[in-house]
């Protein structure tokens, strides 16, 4: 709708509101640059040889070099196997969990729900490290124990293979898959299910013939989304894959630009990145198609009643055990391992001798090892990234939801695009931009470049939430304010802002936490000056300082849980009228 653009001098005269269009145009252009520039850099670097900024003629030499090398195809095969395995592991846990938590009388649902959220707050690389400390063939606690007990020559279990990588990554994806599927379940009208029961159809038949077909588009959408993400993840492939010599695409891109020895080769990274980019966009296209297709099934009813829960009967306890097994792998075991290791001077099995050595020494000395800078940098990220992201998201959503600017659909798509843009690629693209055009974009090696990368990435997430928040605020609530005689700023300040504040603040915390635990982009853009806590942990691990990694990891997780828990608790009262 039109906003009053009239000047105070002539209150009754108005020039057709080009202000809104102009503003929307500017916003679109800015977003286009933010998303487009790193993408353009990927393409540019793939067509150039030499260092960033050296110029030279455009060439296909990088592609020739990369795709004539047989090793590349081995890497592609590894990537596909790893991604497929990851998706399978995730779905095996996520689909039953969604059904159990959304539709049945499973005990302790609330607690399980909270622990899933905590699972998201444990960074993937910390979980991976914890599992390595358990299952590494040489140093892993389980394998040490098996050697002692049974005198085994071979390790009992090893993570250093593709199934091991897929297992850790798959477990880590479960919470996001869960929350995506749960959202789909929530929009499904429970009357559809109840209609089946009243038609005399059994619970199992209803689940198979009604629930599954209706949620199938959502499951398909989640599958594509997970696959798309799994192709691009970096943490597990780096931490397990490097020592095991199992390389995937993201690891190749990273080593091309950050080689352990020798000079970075941005050209090769660009050529590897091109294929990842194409795959990402193709999957994103399918994802959007499936999601749109699925929308025709979902009926959003205004009635706020909870559907009847299905009684699990004697299956309650096995079902609870299933949830507990999952939560152990996701939260309990990794965290306990980290705590155990952080209290000891070196990695060892529980024993009387080990218990005698337990102390907080590692925690006391951790700050001497880290210094103040990473903490300051992390704090900057945690504040700047969510603030910038939410400002962008609110503005974009306002244009998309509340105006009738002709290109608002394109703006929405543009804001969603970073979702399909792998973090590692975005970071490498930005690094190239910062190096090649340092005169125009002088942020390479600063915390700002990491903040920019994070902001671009989470605009996709931010706009999804602000879109739904804005849609929930009925247009008539704003119009009633105007009819009451309140000016546009008053309507925005007194009506719109209070109504969306709780939702915005929720997303703000969440993005702050995502930025806090993010390591891939921070690493790819990292120098000695812009270290953050997550990259420090990564460095310690590289140096083999296992107890210090564990101690810093425990601090990292506890702080996140305290912040989110505290803020949510304090804010839940304010958010009451929103539900």
């Amino acid at each position, binding site marked *: *709708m*039109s906003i*009053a653009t*009239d000047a105070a001098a002539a*209150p*009754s*005269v*108005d*020039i057709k509101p080009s202000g809104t269009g102009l503003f929307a145009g500017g916003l679109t252009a800015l977003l286009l640059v933010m998303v487009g520039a790193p993408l353009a850099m990927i393409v540019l670097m793939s067509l150039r040889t030499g260092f960033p900024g050296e110029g030279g003629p455009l060439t296909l030499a990088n592609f020739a070099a990369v795709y004539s090398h047989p090793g590349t195809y081995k890497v592609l095969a590894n990537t596909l196997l790893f991604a497929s395995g990851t998706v399978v592991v995730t779905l095996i846990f996520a689909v039953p969990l969604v059904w159990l938590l959304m539709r049945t009388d499973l005990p302790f649902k609330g607690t399980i729900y909270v622990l899933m959220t905590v699972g998201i707050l444990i960074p993937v690389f910390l979980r991976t490290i914890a599992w390595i400390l358990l299952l590494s063939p040489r140093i892993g606690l389980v394998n040490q124990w098996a050697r002692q007990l049974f005198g085994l020559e071979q390790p009992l279990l090893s993570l250093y293979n593709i199934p091991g990588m897929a297992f850790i990554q798959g477990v880590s994806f479960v919470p996001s898959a869960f929350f995506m599927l749960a959202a789909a379940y929530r929009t499904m009208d429970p009357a559809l299910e109840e209609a089946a029961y009243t038609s005399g159809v059994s619970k199992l038949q209803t689940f198979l013939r009604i629930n599954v077909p209706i949620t199938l588009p959502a499951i398909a959408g989640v599958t594509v989304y997970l696959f798309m993400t799994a192709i691009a993840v970096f943490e597990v492939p780096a931490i397990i894959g490097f020592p095991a010599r199992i390389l995937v695409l993201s690891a190749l891109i990273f080593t091309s630009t950050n080689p352990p020895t020798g000079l970075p080769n941005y050209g090769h990274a660009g050529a590897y990145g091109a294929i990842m980019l194409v795959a990402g966009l193709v999957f994103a296209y399918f994802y959007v198609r499936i999601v749109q297709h699925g929308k025709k099934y979902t009926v959003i009813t205004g009635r706020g009643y909870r559907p009847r829960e299905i009684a699990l009967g004697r299956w309650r306890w096995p079902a609870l055990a299933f949830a507990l097994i999952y939560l152990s792998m996701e939260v309990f075991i990794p965290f306990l391992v980290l705590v155990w290791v952080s209290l000891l001077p070196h990695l060892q099995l529980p024993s009387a001798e080990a218990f005698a050595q337990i102390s907080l020494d590692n925690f006391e000395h951790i700050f001497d090892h880290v210094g103040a800078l990473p903490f300051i940098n992390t704090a900057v990220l945690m504040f700047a990234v969510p603030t910038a992201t939410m400002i962008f998201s609110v503005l974009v959503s306002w244009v998309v939801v509340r105006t009738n600017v002709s290109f608002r659909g394109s703006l929405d798509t543009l804001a969603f695009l970073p979702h399909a843009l792998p973090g590692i690629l975005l970071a490498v693209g930005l690094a190239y931009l910062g190096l090649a055009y340092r005169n125009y974009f002088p942020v390479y090696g600063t915390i700002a470049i990491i903040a920019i990368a994070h902001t671009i990435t989470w605009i996709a997430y931010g706009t999804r939430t602000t879109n739904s928040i804005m849609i929930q605020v*009925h247009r*008539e*609530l704003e*119009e*009633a*304010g*105007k*009819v*009451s*005689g*309140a*000016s*546009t700023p*008053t*309507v925005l300040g*007194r*009506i719109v802002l*209070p*109504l969306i504040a709780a939702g915005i603040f929720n997303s703000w915390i969440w993005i702050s936490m995502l930025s806090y635990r993010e390591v891939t982009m921070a690493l790819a853009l990292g120098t000695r000056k812009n270290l953050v806590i997550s990259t420090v942990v990564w460095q310690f691990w590289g140096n083999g300082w296992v107890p210090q990694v564990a101690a810093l990891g425990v601090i990292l997780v506890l702080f996140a849980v305290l912040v989110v828990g505290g803020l949510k608790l304090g804010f839940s009262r304010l958010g009451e*009228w*929103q539900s």
Partner: protein
Amino acid sequence: MIKIRGLKKWFDTRRGRVDALRGIDLAIAEKEFFVLLGPSGCGKTTTLRCVAGLERPDAGELEIAGRIVNSPERRIYVATEKRDIGMVFQSYAIWPHMNVFQNVAFPLIRGRKRFGREVVAEKVKRALHLVHLDGLEDRPATDLSGGQQQRVAMARAVVTEPKILLMDEPLSNLDARLREQMRVELKKITRAVGVTTLYVTHDQAEALSLGDRVCVMHGGEVLQTAAPDEVYARPANLFVAEFVGEMNFIKGKVASGRIECPLGVLSLPVPAASDAVTLAIRPEHVRISASDGASGALVGTIASKNYLGDAALLEIEINGVTLLAKLAGDTDITVGQKTSVILPPERWRVFPS
């Protein structure tokens, strides 16, 4: 009080231009209760929103209390917040983060004219008294029932004593009994305030009972503007006849100034330049007498009987057409009975088809 001249509004969609209003002309007098009636998509809500300034017409002129508030040709547009109006929304639009007092006081504290604390309290108290919500000032908006929200919306709309009150299907979200009750009350409240009211509804019973005048709209055009009894008794065209109340429709042909139809040849005034016509008569005007074979009357067979308590609806078959008749009170006529049917000539309406 409100003058609308040649109001046009269109939307550009992917499939081309869609006309929402095709030139609306209306003049609403001071203190009049004026109802816009029509099916969904007829343009009634768009017209109302243009008056409110929430929608901007593409052509035409809008005048409120002698002041032009919107005229695209003359590049005049007075923003919604500068118009002296009150509005009740279909969703009520009660702000959920405020309590009842804050909702009703908002136009007085942040609106066109601002008042001191005591005046605000006094005015809010009076408005809440008007809608029978005395003492509910501190109730959070989220703790209100649908009917109470409706009343708060009403109080908020009249608290500034605006010149014009706009209502967009305010009763459509209430259940049937409450709707009837609120209908009566609505009329009382607007009378008490003495405000010019523009009211939008798709419910013809609501329109007829509330309106001083009713304007029937269809396809972005005004079909008829008249007093309720006039609209009911003399619908201007076939659409109005179909939309307002119930009618029997019979096809007929014009032959030498008279109308031939399955019920015989009727001498009725024929609309100019038409040879095919539709005859219409209301069910309550169809008269039945049990004694069959009265001279000059038609003879029909009762096909069905639907007893409503205060009336009965009968379906009568005559010469292959079915007529609906509504008889007040009890009747001992039974299904299958042959009756004579009297259709008073002055009750017939003739429309070109």
